[in-house]
């Protein structure tokens, strides 16, 4: 049986198929579950050491909609970090002020560190290029909602596959569901070797390519990602790959796709996805962003023990 009460949500690797499906089912239940008080008296500390719009606001919205309250900060300059306080000291102190911590930090492994020193559960809202498990839950939820199933589909991951934490997490999660995967990226932004090895060990059929040409008709889902300027130490390297993909309605029509192809994107987008796609049946990325609410409600309610 899936157990989430008082559990840290750090990495998608920590969840088996049954647990993933439990949260997806609970998220569906949470779709119409607003303005209740099941988390009345509970307080969330929202600690964002890196900018965020969707993740931070959807966590705060989810908590408020379930009757809980939120404290926190949206940038490190507003915390004692600016005075040189270490992350573990900050977490040990805030631990005493709340019932659950949601943490985003630019260093990889920061959420694990926070969970090791905190008494209350910690939810990882993104740690550098490593993991973003709640995004993965909502990506899975969106795919299942729009495709009807997670089993046996073919997914193309497009863009920055090297630094894209959402890609690494989602690919791992989909490995539970007999998914065939295409990794489409410039050579300098390929999927990390250890991620590919891990997927192949889990019997996933993986293909690597630099273009959608020739494979577009095979895909049930395209998971498009932004090339993240902030992850590049060298601006010259960023300029080499900037704008290399620009997915548009005309391009997809020319290449040919399945009629029921769905395009996801964790957002924000820059220039990798043309606005001509927005009104098409392919585009589900705005629905995907909205799905952050039921999914995060499900996670908060189950971790805080409001739903067993």
């Amino acid at each position, binding site marked *: 049986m899936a157990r989430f009460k008082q559990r840290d949500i750090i990495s998608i690797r920590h969840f088996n198929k049954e647990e993933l499906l439990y949260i997806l089912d609970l998220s569906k239940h949470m779709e119409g579950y607003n303005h209740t008080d099941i988390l009345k008296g509970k307080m969330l500390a929202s600690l964002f050491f890196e900018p965020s719009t969707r993740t931070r606001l959807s966590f705060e919205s989810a908590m408020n909609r379930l009757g809980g309250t939120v404290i926190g900060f949206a940038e490190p300059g507003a915390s004692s970090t600016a005075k040189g306080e270490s992350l573990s000291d900050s977490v040990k102190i805030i631990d005493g002020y709340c019932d659950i911590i949601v943490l985003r930090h630019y260093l990889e492994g*920061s959420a694990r560190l926070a969970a090791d020193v905190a008494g209350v559960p910690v939810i990882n809202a993104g740690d550098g290029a490593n993991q973003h498990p709640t995004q993965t839950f909502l990506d899975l939820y969106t795919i299942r909602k729009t495709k009807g199933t997670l089993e046996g589909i073919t997914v193309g991951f497009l863009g920055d596959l090297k630094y894209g934490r959402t890609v690494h997490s989602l690919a791992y999660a989909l490995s539970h569901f007999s998914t065939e995967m295409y990794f489409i990226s410039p050579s300098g932004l390929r999927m990390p070797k250890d991620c590919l090895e891990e997927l192949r060990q889990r019997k996933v059929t993986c293909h690597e390519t630099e273009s959608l040409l020739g494979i577009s008709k095979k895909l049930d889902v395209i998971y498009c990602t932004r090339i993240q300027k902030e992850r590049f130490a060298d601006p010259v390297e960023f300029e080499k790959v900037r704008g290399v993909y620009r997915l548009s309605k005309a391009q997809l029509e020319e290449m040919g796709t399945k009629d029921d192809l769905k395009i996801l994107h964790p957002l924000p987008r820059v220039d990798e996805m043309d606005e001509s796609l927005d009104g098409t049946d392919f585009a589900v990325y705005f629905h995907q962003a909205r799905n952050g609410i039921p999914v995060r409600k499900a996670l908060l309610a189950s971790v805080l023990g409001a739903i067993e």
Partner: protein
Amino acid sequence: MKKRDVSATKDESVIGHVDNKLDVSAIKDGSVIDHIDSKSTLKVATILNIQDEERVVLVGMNLESKCLGKKGIIKIGGKIIDQKEVNKIALIAPNATVNIIKDYNVVKKFKVAVPETIEGIVKCFNPNCVSNHHNLEPKLHVLNKNPIRLQCHYCERVMDSNDFVLT
């Protein structure tokens, strides 16, 4: 009955071809690390900081070995190596054996073993890992022992022996 320092005696005969007067006789007290994969011998020597050692140190490479083909051996007079050093050796030379010598006798002999978790020995190779920015003791979980593969407790990056940075 206690065994003699057999490895040392065997060693002496091999190196003895070069110079019968070379001081490779069995050490009175100390540690003998045997069955090191020959190519890893100098790495093990570095781990043990022999460059700073003032006691007798003998290093042999490319010695004949039935199981390894060619092996390395290191003897350090007067030093009993500790568990942290044994764990470090296990990462570099997983087939090595350690003999503790007292009064020319082998009083303890054991094969090095890679622990399930390695703390404070290997740094995470990921420059963006929190363990390289905060005052944390590196902690890695062993995914596979031979060939060795480690996963950082914090950032989850997986590394093999080519990626190791020893603390």
